[in-house]
């Protein structure tokens, strides 16, 4: 730096820089932990997803480039032209919908009873559903599979439906039970007083009030079941192959990276719906309801 420059009055830009630097320093001092946490989490949480997304749209990607050399969609066509994927995807959606529906039919009347009726052992029976979480999951699946093996339920659709239903019980009972308990009874009583039939009161007053919770329970059950891979793997193979089960073999035995990446992105769609609704689900406490908390 020349003497002339040093002698000149500092340009306003430098004053601005000094100010921002100082405020940056105080920001680090005040928010140090938050900033470190943000950067580390961003690297660790988002880092793994980076290459999945890019691989799905890559035609050619050779090491050590950070981005693919050629982008393109040709692998999408090839992925969905595969017979196993074209078969497993619709099957998985129908299966998850079926399990959700059966779960609702079985659990919703029970949750109404738990919330609104008085009977001996009510609290204990409600808590007993925590047992679905209290086992090491894979051990339980093996134990169920051994029984199914003797009942010839291995590799059958009923077998897969049954094992997947186990995971839905807690959520499908606890969320609606809490919702039915939370309904303001005075509205129902008022309607009954003016002569509405109990059925009409239920459909027109009770149901709309519990609808947000019920739809959350249905949605979460559907998504969880759609991604359920382990039970379906133990009981379903070799004849029943759901999309997540297919992912195991795509990961283990495929040389073409794009297949796994594209299937991952497609499979991620139901989670995206949850992500969009995340704030509402979180506020209702629904996201952790499956754990019993």
């Amino acid at each position, binding site marked *: 730096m020349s003497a002339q420059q040093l002698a000149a009055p500092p340009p306003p830009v430098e004053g601005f820089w000094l100010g921002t630097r100082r405020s940056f320093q105080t920001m680090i001092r005040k928010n140090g932990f938050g900033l470190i946490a943000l950067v580390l989490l961003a690297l660790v949480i988002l880092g793994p997803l980076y290459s999945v997304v890019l691989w799905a749209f890559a035609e050619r990607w050779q090491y050590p480039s950070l981005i693919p050399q050629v982008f393109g969609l040709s692998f999408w066509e090839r992925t969905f032209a595969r017979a196993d994927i074209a078969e497993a995807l619709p099957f998985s959606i129908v299966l998850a919908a079926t399990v959700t529906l059966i779960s609702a039919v079985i659990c919703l009347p029970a949750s109404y*009873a738990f*919330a609104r009726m008085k009977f001996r052992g009510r609290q204990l029976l409600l808590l007993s559903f*925590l047992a*679905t979480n*209290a086992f090491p999951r894979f051990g339980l699946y093996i134990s169920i599979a051994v029984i199914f093996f003797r009942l010839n339920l291995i590799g059958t659709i009923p077998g897969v439906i049954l094992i997947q239903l186990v995971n839905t019980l807690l959520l499908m009972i606890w969320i609606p039970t809490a919702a039915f308990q939370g309904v303001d009874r005075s509205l129902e009583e008022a309607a009954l007083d003016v002569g509405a039939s109990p059925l009409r009161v239920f459909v027109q007053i009770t149901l709309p009030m519990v609808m947000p919770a019920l739809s959350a329970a249905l949605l979460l059950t559907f998504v969880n079941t759609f991604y359920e891979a382990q039970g379906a793997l133990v009981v379903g193979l070799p004849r029943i192959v759901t999309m997540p089960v297919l992912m195991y073999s795509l990961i283990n035995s495929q040389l073409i990276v794009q297949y796994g990446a594209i299937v991952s992105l497609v499979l991620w769609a139901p989670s995206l719906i949850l992500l969009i609704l995340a704030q509402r689900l979180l506020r209702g406490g629904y996201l952790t309801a499956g754990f019993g908390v």
Partner: protein
Amino acid sequence: MTAAAPSQSSPSWRKGIIAYLMVAPPLLLMILLIFIPALQSTARTLTIDVNGAPGFSISRYTAFFQDPISVSNLFFTFQVTLITLAAIFILCFPLAIYLRFANGKLAGAVQVLALFPLFVPGIILAYALIRFLGTRGTLDNVLSIIGFTGYRTPYLKPDAIIFGLVWESIPFTVLVLTAGLRQISDSLIESARDVGANSWQIFWRIILPQIARPVLIVFSLNFLGIFGSYTIPYLLGPAAPQMMGVFMQQTFGQYRRPDDAETQAVITFIICAFIGFLYVRTVANQRKREDSE
């Protein structure tokens, strides 16, 4: 507590029966698919065929514990579970405390990132982590661009299992711990500070005792989740030693030895029985307290 309105038309015992009929289907399903398999497996592993009649024997267990591969797999499962649990607490405790006491956009962003893994299914995570941690994966790539060339991938090593399991557990752990921390009032902490307590004392004497329950829930559910895991250790871990989930599936699915798989499953039940009990009891107590409030 909701009290059922006494109905004029039907006596209370009749209502009780209707209630039991309504809660029966999910209860039966749970008994059929959880309690009976678990009990039956336990009984079968203790039974031996003596000239056509069943007799008591622990020979299946002695066989398990005499087999060096089985023992090393069990030991390995323990090791991974304990290290993963420690890592989860070391990471999530500071995060939860930060999220409890910080406000503003930065804290919001940290929370979004910490909860993001809730929306990434295990099977997709496994694929993403192979691309991220593997040789010539994103991490390797970035490090070599910075000039660090000695990257040795944790893929197919225990470290990758731990990384994946921690990744999956962050949202649930942070959510439950943060919710527990929110129960502690600001005024309590301020008054402790007023009488001269430092941050460490506040953590040990005030925060920790108050969130004993959330900590127990997080500990027990993560323990069960890790001990009973399959997808992450199968896809990211070494071929030997294996975690119990992978070992059981191999014994059942590949080697077609359901009896041995059953013994392995029951051993995981026995080890997790106390933790499962702890989980159910803690959640039950928590709910009782919430109900009485």
